[in-house]
């Protein structure tokens, strides 16, 4: 965690955060399914100031061939930030951070996707971060899960993600960029909302064991809010007149 000194009031006396939210309030979340023509499934998400597009291809032939598995399909995920997505231009080649995030997103999705139905094939999930704010891995995962469902790939469950964190000694939902820089802990969480399994969990920052429990609970509550928005996005795309 940044833990940087700041003049900003992260949490005022009324329990209001630097961007005007309450402690249990997420940023504005908007998801649209089916935004690309060439991809088999796609989604666009705005999560606070994050702007992210996800596209899914497959099941399709595996190249390079040696990656293919005779028992099951494979899932490949690429999380990539555009150079203009952050204040200081980011070099376009995938960084170690992006490679790690790609891996944890893949592992968060794997339990939900029924890859065993498609041996010797690959399902590719490509995520482009157009603008990054705090919590881009959770937003990317939310969009990726909607894109997989939009592609009609059989899934056991949705995957919904939201971060919780610790700001001014308080556990809060969905920390933004300022809170990430100056806060005390950042815990991205993803769940499969129907099975209740936690499929992504990371933490930067120090928590007592009670704060750890509270932070997981808070993150899971945020995931459930996101789940409703994901379902609505899919309904709007696939059922005429839905979501009104």
């Amino acid at each position, binding site marked *: *965690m940044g833990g940087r000194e700041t003049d900003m009031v992260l949490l005022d006396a009324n329990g209001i955060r630097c961007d005007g939210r309450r402690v249990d309030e997420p940023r504005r979340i908007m998801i649209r399914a089916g935004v690309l023509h060439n991809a088999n499934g796609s989604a666009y998400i705005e999560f606070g100031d994050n702007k992210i597009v996800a596209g899914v291809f497959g099941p399709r032939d595996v190249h390079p061939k040696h990656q293919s598995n*005779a*028992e099951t399909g494979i899932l490949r995920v690429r999380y990539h930030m555009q150079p203009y997505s952050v204040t200081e231009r980011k070099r376009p080649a995938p960084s*170690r*951070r992006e*490679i*790690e995030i*790609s*891996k*944890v997103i893949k*592992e968060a999705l*794997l*339990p939900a996707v029924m890859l065993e139905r498609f041996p010797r094939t690959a399902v590719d999930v490509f995520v482009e971060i157009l603008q990054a704010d705090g919590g881009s891995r959770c937003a990317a995962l939310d969009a990726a899960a909607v894109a997989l469902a939009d592609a009609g790939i059989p899934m056991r469950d949705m995957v919904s993600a939201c971060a919780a964190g610790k700001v001014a000694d308080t556990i809060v939902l969905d920390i933004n960029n300022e809170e990430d820089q100056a806060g005390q802990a950042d*815990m991205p969480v993803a*769940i*499969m909302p129907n*099975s*209740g*399994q*936690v*499929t*992504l*969990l*990371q*933490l*930067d*920052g*120090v*928590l*007592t*064991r009670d704060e*750890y*429990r509270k932070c*997981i*609970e808070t993150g*899971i509550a945020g995931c459930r809010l996101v789940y409703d928005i994901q379902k609505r996005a899919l309904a709007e795309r696939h059922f005429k007149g839905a979501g009104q």
Partner: protein
Amino acid sequence: MGTVSILDGLKRKLVADSVASGRRADGRALDEMRELVVETGVVPKAEGSARVRLGRTEVVTGVKVNPDRPFPDTGDRGTFICTAEIPPLAHPDAEAGPPSEAVIELARVVDRGIRESHMLDMSQLVIKRDVSVVGVFTDNAVMDDGGNLFDACSYASVAAILSCKLPVWEMAEDAPRLVEGQRRDPPITTVPVSVTMGRIGNHIVVDPSLEEWMCLDARLTITTNSEGNICALQKGGREGFTPEQLNSCAETAISVGARVRPKLEAARRAG
């Protein structure tokens, strides 16, 4: 490929059966880690070093300390970089060349545990604010992959840092100059201990062996500090955990961590 996957399936069943019986293939209880041996001072040219054996896993880690340029927005702090490598001698499947995503994750998880615990007080690693700071580079090399490289590399890094003697620099003109004959202890604030647990079916095992590692449904690495607080987490693997499992893993990480910590702290005295 066919024979390999049949063998894998049989092995998986064997491992799962022994875990379900409460006694693991190597005779350990589910919450029992393997024997941990920590030696320090194994590479005298490095400012700090350690060889860690965790069961059959062996890691050699060196700490190099050099003057470094600070990051533009943190001119009042030293720099810390932790890397990990699995050279080809460590495992038949390990290949030379650019690091795989698994190796990148390994290095970043070890780095995060140390960084987020604030083990080193970085504000005490400044030679001249905004101009020159002390850079601490911790490089892990796996010699033998016997499973659970996360904890082995973390223990080796922490022991190497604790055993480290820092050179002293002063500013001369606009460049740092080494003060001959002076060494100081690193500014340690806490001793982070990483504990990796694997889930096989509904059972959680501490410190998975290589055989178990191949059969994990999911894994979780929890790093705790000297106060018994949690300072870093990483979930991995192709499945998930229930919230109840996450809570019991935290308790396990705190209690196992408290048992490991004195073994790492001994590195400080050994120098």
